[in-house]
């Protein structure tokens, strides 16, 4: 099984001489550092099955403070401006499912932690957005997560290109800069447009002690938050649990069916899998929906492993 992802890399023609692991670690550390501390501006594309879009990004880091603006350049102007990692303004439709606070910690590109779930390799050199890059591969150690191919700018350490690949080597999504400039963006370009509004939580969501738990989780994944909010379609309270392994994330939604007719479901939107499974509890059937950037088989197994905690055992 371990060799299936490897074979995919070979087919993609990016496999080079056996890498020096330490050098790959150094590049990953450098990438993490650049994502925090480097000022830059540029344009990038995002492509997944059924969607292709172009975006601009401006990021200015001064001392401990950061100022960042992201703007979709085609179609409706989706936009978000963040100051010191807090949302300063955002276009409405990008935030209408948000409540308060981040649920996941920011991506942890700490080589030592990722090592448990991914094998890190330096697989070659490339050129992206007119810049020289080194290619890092994060090969999953099991079938419960996808592989990532990262092209890191040699000069700045910024990620120029990121591909998400299934175990069969298929491209699930592409993030790729077309232009990158490491000069400091002007204050004017960091201002949000007219549609960019301060974040007003559109939904009420409360942090709760989990009343559900998963009997099985893919290795390396941990629970990061447990919340509850109103169902998008009824007055039912929907429990939401979010999990991550430092790179991949998934959410589990649990909504009581109250006798409603609803079938099990499997769906895939680009890199994101959605699996719904009906689970029986003493209070009636509940629909468990797992949504995340994980393989379908894994999402299914998580959905089937969800168990309601008996009231007296709940912490």
């Amino acid at each position: 099984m371990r060799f299936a992802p490897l074979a995919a890399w070979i087919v993609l023609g990016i496999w080079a001489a056996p890498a020096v692991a330490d050098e790959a670690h150094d590049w990953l550390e450098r990438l993490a550092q650049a994502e925090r501390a480097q000022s830059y501006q540029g344009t990038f594309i995002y492509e997944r099955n059924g969607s292709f879009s172009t975006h601009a990004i401006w990021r200015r880091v001064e001392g401990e403070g950061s100022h960042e603006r992201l703007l979709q350049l085609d179609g409706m102007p989706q936009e978000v401006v963040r100051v010191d990692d807090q949302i300063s303004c955002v276009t409405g439709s990008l935030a209408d499912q948000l409540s308060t606070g981040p649920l996941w910690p920011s991506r942890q590109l700490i080589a030592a932690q990722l090592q448990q779930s991914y094998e890190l390799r330096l697989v070659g050199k490339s050129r992206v957005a007119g810049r020289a890059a080194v290619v890092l591969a994060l090969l999953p150690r099991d079938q419960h997560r996808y592989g990532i191919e990262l092209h890191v700018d040699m000069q700045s350490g910024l990620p120029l290109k990121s591909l998400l690949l299934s175990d069969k080597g298929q491209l699930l999504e592409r993030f790729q800069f077309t232009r990158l400039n490491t000069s400091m963006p002007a204050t004017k370009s960091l201002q949000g447009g007219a549609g960019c509004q301060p974040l007003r939580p559109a939904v009420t969501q409360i942090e709760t002690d989990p009343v559900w738990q998963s009997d099985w989780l893919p290795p390396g994944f941990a629970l990061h938050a447990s919340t509850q909010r109103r169902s998008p379609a009824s007055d039912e309270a929907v429990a939401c649990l979010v999990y991550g392994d430092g790179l991949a994330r998934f959410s589990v939604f649990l909504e009581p069916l109250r006798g409603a007719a609803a079938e099990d479901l499997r769906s895939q939107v680009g890199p994101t899998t959605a699996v719904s499974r009906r689970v029986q509890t003493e209070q009636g059937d509940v629909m468990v929906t797992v949504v995340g950037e994980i393989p379908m088989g894994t999402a299914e197994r998580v959905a089937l492993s969800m168990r309601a905690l008996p009231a007296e055992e709940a912490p």
Partner: protein
Amino acid sequence: MSRETLHESLSAVMDNQADELELRRVLAASEDADVRATWSRYQLARAVMHKELLEPRLDIAAAVSAALADEPAPALQPRAPASWRTLGRLAVAASVTLAVLVGVRFYNQDAITGAQMAQQAAQPMLSLPQVQGPALLAGFSSESEQAQASGQPAQPSTWHEQRLPSYLRQHAQQAAMSGADSALPYARAASLESR
């Protein structure tokens, strides 16, 4: 014949190890809903072991039967011009062919092309007038379609339609607003809006 013997035979057929007797035994029992369900479960188990993506509830035979049952019998339309009857036959043939094609293609799908096909469901190709809905839809993943295909009362999947987009966007937006690696999760969230 005991249930257990039948299950053993079923397992043997699936592994291509069945002898003539076992094959006949399974074929004789193939109308039985329980046997079909068991067959589906075995296929799923095997698919999981082989790491294949598979829609276990795909039941082409039931879908084709349903399509044929829906087709108005020629005897009920004595005045219909010959050309219409021909068209009707073509329609059945087309729907059966499509069901098989779609089914076979779906069996060989992996994640991204599976999603492509699911998206094609909304495309004009599938609204061709001569196509019988149930047979065609049998290849796609929602089980309400399966319910239709096997002749049970149709259950619209409105439950999911009302919720899944919201769940997807909630997941994407929460990930997008979570931290320093924001560009990629942001782009994922934005891609759900620009349709």
